[in-house]
């Protein structure tokens, strides 16, 4: 680095984005370059800010769910779980066992889906173009599963306060089992394509290194932190859904470079497949949503025979349910780290404040440490490995 500094001394400021394929969304980077070495980088965000948090204050609780899904548009199930879980804890509503297992299945499928999008686009940035097609092939199978169970491929609105809106359909289990059987082999294929790819290795190994201590100071969570050797995973640390009953490992890296970040996420995909399989094996019989008519819509079949069910349905759809005063911060492990949902209830049928602690937003602060005093090409690799979703950053 010292040698480089002597040869070039002129600093040039370059603007990258906001519309650029390598920024993974609408992110603008203002980079001070000295030759090809990054001396300073300032991420400029807010281009896709849509005021979702403010809009949520004007909607009854059940109408907030489709809003929050659209923040981080790659991991929508996690946003739903964070919000529904927060409201369930505010109203002290226990969800049935079957709903917990179904939620775990969809959350982990979503984690694989999110990591596949990351792997495909990041490998594309690094020149491994064929990875995108392989990853999106498997991603499409997950979206097919989502469509089969929920009717939508993205933004499914599947989780409800009290459980999930519908039970899984006939034939879903067989299709999911087929996916579980094939996916570990597919992950091996990805690794075979990348692990001995000289270009990929030289661009990821030893680049973008940030120490474990610095990452913790910056509040970075998720695969980025685990790649630096810190085994911190909210699924293990806190008791939510049925994760304590499932057997899975938390992959960690050693040096915290871009290669470790890649290894950790790929290993997480395999672990997620294991979680889905265990959750499917352990899926108990029973209701898929709580039987509390004050919060949960009555079954459709009752509406034509029971006046009371009709009244409950009408009240829930028109006014929504009221949530007593209180405030809560509920955090779960999303594919990018700690996803927290902060809800303030004031006793009315609309939340007084909904805030998401989005991991992409917080993790983006580590980008400067990853890129400064490295080559601009390494900065692009680091940005891919950081995996920010700008919908989540800007909300």
């Amino acid at each position, binding site marked *: 680095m010292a040698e480089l500094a002597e040869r070039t001394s002129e600093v040039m400021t370059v603007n990258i984005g906001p519309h650029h394929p390598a920024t993974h969304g609408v992110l603008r980077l203002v980079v001070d370059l000295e030759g090809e070495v990054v001396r300073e980088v300032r991420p400029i*965000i*807010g281009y896709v*800010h849509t*005021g979702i*948090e*403010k*809009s949520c*204050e*004007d909607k009854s609780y059940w109408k907030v769910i489709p809003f929050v899904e659209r923040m981080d548009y790659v991991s929508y199930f996690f946003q739903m779980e964070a919000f529904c879980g927060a409201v369930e*804890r*505010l109203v002290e509503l226990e969800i049935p066992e079957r709903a917990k297992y179904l939620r775990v299945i969809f959350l982990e499928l979503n984690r694989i889906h999110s990591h596949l999008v990351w792997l495909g686009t990041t490998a594309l940035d690094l020149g491994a173009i064929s990875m995108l097609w392989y990853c999106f092939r498997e991603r499409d199978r997950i979206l097919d599963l989502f469509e089969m169970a929920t009717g939508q491929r993205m933004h499914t609105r599947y989780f409800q306060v009290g459980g999930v809106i519908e039970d899984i359909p006939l034939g879903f289990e067989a299709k999911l089992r087929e996916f579980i059987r094939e996916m570990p082999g597919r992950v091996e294929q990805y690794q075979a394509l990348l692990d001995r790819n000289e270009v990929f290795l030289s661009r990821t190994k030893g680049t973008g290194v940030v120490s474990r201590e610095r990452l*913790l*100071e*910056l*509040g*970075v969570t998720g695969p980025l932190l685990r790649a630096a050797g810190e085994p*911190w995973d909210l699924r293990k*640390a*806190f008791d939510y859904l049925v994760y304590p009953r499932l057997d899975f490992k938390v992959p960690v890296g050693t040096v915290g470079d871009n290669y470790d970040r890649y290894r950790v996420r790929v290993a997480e995909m395999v672990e997620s497949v294991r979680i889905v399989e265990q959750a499917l094996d352990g899926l108990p019989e029973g209701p898929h949503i709580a039987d509390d008519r004050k919060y949960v819509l009555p079954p459709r079949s009752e509406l034509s025979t029971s006046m009371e069910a009709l009244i409950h349905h009408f009240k829930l759809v028109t006014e929504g349910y009221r949530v007593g005063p*209180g*405030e*809560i*911060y509920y*955090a779960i492990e999303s594919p990018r780290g*700690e996803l*927290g949902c*902060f809800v*303030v209830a004031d006793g009315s049928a609309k939340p*007084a*404040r909904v*805030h998401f*602690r989005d991991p992409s*937003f*917080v993790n*983006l*602060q580590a980008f400067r440490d990853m890129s400064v005093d490295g080559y601009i090409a390494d900065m692009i690799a680091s940005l891919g490995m950081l995996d920010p979703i700008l919908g989540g950053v*800007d*909300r």
Partner: protein
Amino acid sequence: MPDAPGLELIRGEIEAAHPGAVIDSGFAQERAVLSIDPAHVLDVLRWLRDTSGHEYGFLSSLHAADYLPAQPRFAVHYELLNRDRVERIRVKALLPDPGDGALPELDSCVELFPTAEFQEREVFDFFGIVFKGHPDPRRILLPEDYVGWPQRRDFPVGGEPVTFTYNERNYG
């Protein structure tokens, strides 16, 4: 999360070190909450971070809420975490509205927790709470020339007014 006697001990120890810092302590939805005087926010956060036996060294989240019409109107929430004991504690700095269009002020905790930099900018952007000593006190998500603090409860929600030109022209 500390249990009820544990929380009272924390409160007592902070009171001894910084008299008047803690206004209230209690549990809300299974979370230990310390409500504090905004003048002592850095004292309390530093105490919780550095005192051995407590060491809440990780700031999970920093966010604000507007409790209009309650007083004090604003609160900035610090969700602190001790990762070894897997304990969370919430610190709430209660901020009154100074009125007359003046902005409420609070000390920035970026020196203690560098993770707060973006999140404090976000709180400033949406609530107009000024963090004194912040290294880069600008708006973050909204345009820099934006006027108003949109997450405040008295900021109007709603679309643009619709002008019915056809009706006005033909039917007065």
